[in-house]
């Protein structure tokens, strides 16, 4: 009984629907489909367009749904009455039908009674293009943005009309602006009216977007051509004179050869091969083989062969020059309309100049961030070397110790934000202790022997570096920055700067402030200045120079440790991390002027800008940039041996 009932119901439903189907098409959309039934059934990419257009332009609210189902191969046709339905599979033989206009269930039907519309991939993409317009007008802003992204990724001529129809009354101003911009971009590429296109091109004057350049550049694509005389009616980009920088004589002749205007040159290797093939009794073209060890002798032999008609004639310099003189060389725009190309060229020129301005801005930001890294690396040195006059070659290793401290803390505390906050003071503590220990054990015995301080601290540096290698291995260890430091601040398509660099910049500024505060506003700073100027006078005023020296050295080393954490975030942590920065750090202090923090700041800024500037001139080669920078510094020291800001008078010490 329970089995019979559904079956009976199904039969009943079938009858009902069959009855309904005999009526005229029940809805406007069904009528529309019926109108184009032949095309739909044929489903060929060549003929289907009118049917799709009709659906798209019908203005029926169901049209989008029908197109989507069609694209997804869920639109079926009932064989009895040729009506279209949405069908959903129930089991392998039975399908549930739904009305295309209302979506209401119509009944179940065996698969045999249905035909599936199977649009091929070509037709599906055409349906997709038609659907774009619906997506562009979708209620959900996310969908509209998605559609815009899709168009931008893969623009096509048919999108233009779809977009133009979809701008109208977008409630979201940002999306509307984007649509308008995209219309202008598509107009440049696909617009049918030349005046419109030129207007669109000119609307992009000074625009920084990569998309604008991407749309304009193809218009200015040229092809290099050679001809006997300048042809009429072409859109000429420029004439080229052979032998100039743009077109060397060799290139000009190659162009002639590839345009079939001149016979191919015979290369030295080809000539040699030809000679090789035509050896007759130890001679080629009557020249003995042994004499063929110069180009002139080979040429003679080859010409002899050519005269005998065995090989193609050799092309000499005179022939090449003659052929070049007899032809004109020019670049021709692929775009036929001169008005378009000239508008594109002027627009692109304004774009390039504003891009240039922004690139300079971007470079400035880069240079500033590099400068702040150098400043961070050098500020500890500005204390130990600049204020105390102690050359600490192990300074780089203190930076490394700070970075490794950060790494170890991250192994213990998994939360990156907390671990950085813990690592900064801990790195200070670790390197402060190391610095104090070093000052007590080694440096204080060598205050009068700067060269030996340099060597002894280098011994420590060698030992510390190897120790780090033994403990942490030679591979780079990661020091991961917290998620809120990921990403970059993007000002426009040209100018952007990563948050981590901003953080380092801010950190450098904080350190500058801390340094100035300690040196100028605290008791410690006063005593440090007193001890460095005249230790014995300071001692007689009740200051303990030993203690001050120890604390100052510890402070400088501790700051190096914090700098190590910051640098570790930006670069990989290895045992060589410190030695990569040590020479630059000393350079920064020396160039800036020993004993003056503003000098160090200026030195870091100068070196940062200089390095970025040289890298910009020769972007492929950062090694060369460093080389030239060091050479520049060596020369700079010639003119200001005491650095940018030289101490004068009593503070200078001598």
């Amino acid at each position, binding site marked *: 009984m329970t089995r019979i009932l559904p079956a009976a119901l199904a039969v009943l439903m079938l009858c009902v629907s069959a009855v309904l189907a005999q009526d005229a098409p029940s809805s406007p959309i069904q009528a529309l489909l019926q109108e184009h039934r032949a095309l739909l059934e044929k489903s060929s990419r060549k003929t289907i367009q009118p049917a799709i257009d009709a659906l798209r332009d019908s203005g029926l609210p169901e049209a989008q749904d029908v197109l989507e189902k069609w694209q997804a191969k869920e639109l079926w046709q009932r064989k009895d009455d040729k009506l279209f339905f949405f069908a959903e599979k129930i089991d392998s033989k039975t399908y549930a039908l739904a009305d295309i206009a209302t979506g209401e269930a119509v009944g179940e039907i065996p698969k045999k009674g249905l035909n599936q519309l199977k649009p091929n991939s070509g037709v599906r993409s055409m349906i997709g293009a038609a659907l774009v317009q619906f997506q562009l007008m979708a209620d959900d802003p996310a969908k509209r943005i998605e559609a815009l992204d899709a168009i931008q990724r893969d623009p096509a001529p048919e999108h233009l009309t779809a977009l133009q129809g979809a701008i109208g009354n977008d409630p979201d101003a940002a999306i509307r602006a984007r649509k308008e911009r995209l219309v202008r971009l598509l107009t440049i590429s696909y617009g049918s009216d030349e005046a419109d296109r030129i207007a669109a091109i000119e609307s992009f004057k000074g625009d920084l977007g990569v998309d604008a350049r991407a749309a304009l550049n193809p218009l200015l694509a040229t092809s290099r051509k050679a001809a006997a005389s300048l042809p009429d009616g072409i859109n000429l980009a420029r004439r080229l004179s052979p032998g100039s920088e743009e077109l060397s004589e060799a290139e000009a002749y190659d162009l002639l050869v590839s345009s079939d205007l001149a016979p191919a040159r015979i290369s030295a290797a080809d000539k*040699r091969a030809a*000679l*090789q093939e035509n*050896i007759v009794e130890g001679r*080629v073209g009557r020249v003995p*083989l*042994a004499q*063929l*060890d*110069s*180009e002139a002798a*080979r040429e003679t032999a080859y010409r002899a062969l050519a005269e005998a008609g065995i090989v193609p004639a050799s092309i000499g310099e005179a022939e090449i020059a003659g052929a070049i003189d007899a032809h004109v060389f020019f670049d021709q725009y692929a775009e036929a309309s001169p008005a378009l190309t000239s508008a594109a060229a002027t627009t692109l020129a304004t774009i390039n100049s504003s891009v240039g301005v922004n690139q300079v801005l971007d470079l400035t930001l880069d240079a500033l961030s590099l400068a702040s890294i150098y400043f961070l690396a050098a500020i500890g040195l500005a204390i130990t070397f600049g204020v105390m006059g102690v*050359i600490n070659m192990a300074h780089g290793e203190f930076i490394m110790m700070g970075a490794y401290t950060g790494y170890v803390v991250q192994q213990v505390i998994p939360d990156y934000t907390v671990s950085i906050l813990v690592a900064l003071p801990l790195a200070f503590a670790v390197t402060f202790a190391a610095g104090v220990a070093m000052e007590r054990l*080694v440096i204080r*015995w*060598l205050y*009068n*022997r*700067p*060269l*030996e301080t*340099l*060597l*002894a601290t*280098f*011994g*420590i*540096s*060698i*030992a*510390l*570096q*190897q*120790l780090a*290698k*033994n403990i942490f291995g030679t591979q780079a260890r990661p020091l991961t920055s917290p998620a809120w430091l990921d990403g970059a601040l993007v000002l426009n398509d040209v100018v952007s700067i990563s948050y981590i660099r901003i953080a380092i910049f801010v950190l450098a500024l904080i350190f500058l402030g801390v340094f100035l505060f300690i040196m100028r506003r605290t008791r410690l700073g006063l005593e440090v200045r007193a001890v460095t100027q005249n230790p014995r006078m300071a001692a007689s005023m009740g200051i303990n120079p030993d203690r001050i020296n120890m604390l100052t050295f510890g402070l400088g080393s501790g700051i190096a440790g914090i700098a190590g954490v910051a640098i570790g975030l930006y670069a990989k942590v290895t045992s060589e991390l410190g*030695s990569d920065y040590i*020479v630059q750090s*000393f*350079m920064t202090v*020396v160039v800036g002027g020993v004993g003056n923090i503003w000098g160090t700041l200026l030195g870091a800024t100068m070196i940062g800008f200089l390095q970025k500037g040289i890298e910009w001139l020769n972007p492929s*080669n950062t*090694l*060369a940039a*460093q*080389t030239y920078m*060091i*050479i520049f*510094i*060596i*020369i700079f*020291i*010639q*003119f200001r*041996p005491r650095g940018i800001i030289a101490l004068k008078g009593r503070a200078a010490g001598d």
Partner: protein
Amino acid sequence: MNRSFFARNPSVLVFIAVLALFTLAVTVTSEAVGSGALSTSFIKTLGKTLCLCLVAIAMDLIWGFAGILSLGHMAFFGLGGYMIGMWLMYARTEMIVTASMANAEIPPTDQEIVDAIGTQIFGVVGSSDFPPIWAFADSLTLQLAMVVLVPGLLALVFGWLAFRSRVTGVYLSILTQAMTLALALYLFQNDSGLRGNNGLSGLQNLPGADAIPQADISLWFFWASALALALGYLLAAWITSGKFGSVIRGIRDDEARVRFLGYSVEGYKLFVFTLTAVIAAIAGALYYPQAGIINPAEIAPIASIYLAVWVAIGGRGRLYGAVIGAAFVSLLSTWFTSGQAPSIPLGFYTIDWVDWWQVLLGISFVLVTLFAPKGIGGLVDIFTGRIPPKRHGADLGPDSGSLQEQEAEQ
């Protein structure tokens, strides 16, 4: 004052005699002509060590006598190696290329040979054209001249720039280190024309000497190195013993005073700087054919620091000290880093010297600087009875005058 040079400098005779005995001993135990007790590779190591002793003498001249702590002399050493390496590589590749091209029926043109050599040499850096600096590589004479001229000119220009602006002391040290770094970074580029970080290789194969066993060649180079060391030592001893030596020692102890006495301090410094650069370059030109390969890592600043370490441990301010230091530390370093030194098991940890040698070296270097500023060479004073009188305070170091700390304050 008319006594002969050797009578005034007995250490020179002793040194030459010791060196001659050592060379003789090595020769009779070599594989090539003697019993074969010493392996060819060890003779190469000894030959290389003699070259390092020579560059240590140069370092002692500039640092121990003239008081300029140059951290760039290994750059000149490396440049010398590069200059001789260019000829070795060019000439040997030329022979190989000519031999392989001789089989072709049509004899090659000169240009074809040069192109084929270029492809062979610069294939690794994706190029085949000879850069201009290789212009003289086909001539041994010119390239030997370059061994002296290129580092000499570099030292002359750099020294002139540095000394005329009165850069002294640690500033000069840092500047020379920067120069070394700049040179190393430059050579690391592939388009520097010297094969980037691949460097020059195959230098142990002398062109045209394929039939001669390496045992013989290594002995020849050992003799050449010993001869160069002897000559270098004589030259250095002669320079430092006369009036010139007094002036440069004067510059070391009090530069301003020497200048006030009317000497051209900059000229003296420049001469010593350039001369030592040339000596270093010659040592390098002898060293790298024995090492077989040279690359920019050899010029890295750390190499020059090690040079200073050798001289300091050996005892600066005396020529034999530099030689002892270089030989002692570099041989010890070879012994430790080659894994021959026995590991020390501590129960919870085993000290493997390959890993810990550098730590030991660093620490012992600090200890020598602190407690034995005269280095190993200072031991000689105990035997010769040249014990200095007991004086007040710590040593001020060779660049701050000859007074001791407390005397200076009085």
